[in-house]
């Protein structure tokens, strides 16, 4: 730890260049966030993690998720001003994502239950707050299927040209990380539909249960270096097989 800073009057150690949100949370301070995920780079899109940072003579209200620490800062993570600013942002977010349980609950914590703004209608993807977590995760995974399109109030997220794409393998990670739950994914016993594309599941060779999508399996075989047959069985059948193998060793009769 090569630098020091003060958060809420407490001296904290950090590495120069670390993100303030990570350091604050590590030190036990709570800062809310929506578009933040440890596995991907922060972009400060949701504006919920705002904190006050005094660096030298300048004090600014900034997103902590992507503020890189220099050392010597005085940070406040909670104050009347910060609460008001977070509340305003949450009010706007709530108007855009009224169907999101997580946004509703966070907004409620900050005293917002009915936004002054009318809910967004005819949205490309209802309840999407354009946090781009899905895009960042898809990129991190190496698929690069999702991206932002357009700018300003016409900005939206989707597959290239909004058509079924080779790059999407149907892994469902975007669905898993989405903070508002706006991405639609439907799994049946045999296939998955997401972003308007249908993906067949690999079916367990013994019992036919779905494992992962065929395309995801193909991607894993190509990139992860494990034998192909690792993906042939569902977890229950793998356990049953393993237990038979252990039994053969444990009871030698």
């Amino acid at each position, binding site marked *: 730890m090569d630098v020091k800073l003060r958060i809420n009057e407490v001296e904290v150690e950090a590495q120069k260049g670390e993100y303030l949100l990570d350091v604050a949370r590590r030190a036990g301070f709570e800062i809310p966030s929506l578009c933040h*995920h*440890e*596995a991907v780079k922060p972009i400060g899109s949701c504006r919920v993690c705002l904190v006050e940072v005094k660096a030298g003579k300048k004090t600014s209200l900034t997103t902590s998720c992507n503020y890189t620490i220099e050392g010597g800062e005085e940070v406040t993570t909670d104050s009347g001003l910060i609460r008001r600013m977070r509340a305003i942002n949450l009010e706007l977010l709530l108007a855009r994502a009224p169907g999101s349980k997580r946004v509703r609950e966070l907004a409620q914590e900050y005293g917002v239950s009915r936004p002054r703004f009318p809910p967004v209608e005819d949205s490309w993807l209802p309840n999407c707050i354009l946090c781009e977590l899905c895009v960042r*995760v898809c990129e*991190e*995974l*190496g698929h690069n299927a999702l991206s932002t399109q357009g700018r300003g109030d016409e900005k939206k997220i989707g597959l290239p040209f909004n058509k079924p794409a080779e790059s999407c393998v149907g*892994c*469902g*990670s975007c*669905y*898993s*990380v989405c903070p508002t739950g706006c991405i639609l994914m439907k799994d049946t016993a045999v296939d998955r539909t997401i972003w308007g594309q249908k993906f067949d599941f*690999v079916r367990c060779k013994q019992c036919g249960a779905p*494992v*992962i999508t065929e395309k*995801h*399996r193909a991607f*894993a075989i190509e990139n*992860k*270096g*494990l034998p192909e047959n*690792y*993906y042939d*069985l*569902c*977890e*229950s*059948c*793998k*356990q*049953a*097989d*393993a*237990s*038979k193998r*252990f*039994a053969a060793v*444990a*009871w030698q009769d």
Partner: protein
Amino acid sequence: MHSGAGLLGRSRIKVHPVGPERFVQVTCLQCVEAACAQVCPTQALVRNPDTGALEVNASRCIGCGLCEAACPFGHMHFDTELRLAVKCDLCGGRPACATFCPHNALEWR
């Protein structure tokens, strides 16, 4: 034990019958060269140096489900509600299963 729910389906140790009156308990083998850790795209599976267990760092997990598909013994689980990988973590060093077993069939050394 982990979710406090007492749900058989959420247990991270399972018992499989392999013959008349013969049962094998199966749970994570905490593999030295773990398939789950190898496929994880975000390095969310990390070794706990105190317990030796491989643990899921839930804040790094992006819910892709590859680990569940890759584990050759069927011991990575994917919680489809939480959209997170879940696995035996030796309960932080004092496995509840071994502690509980009234017949001492499970031993943790």
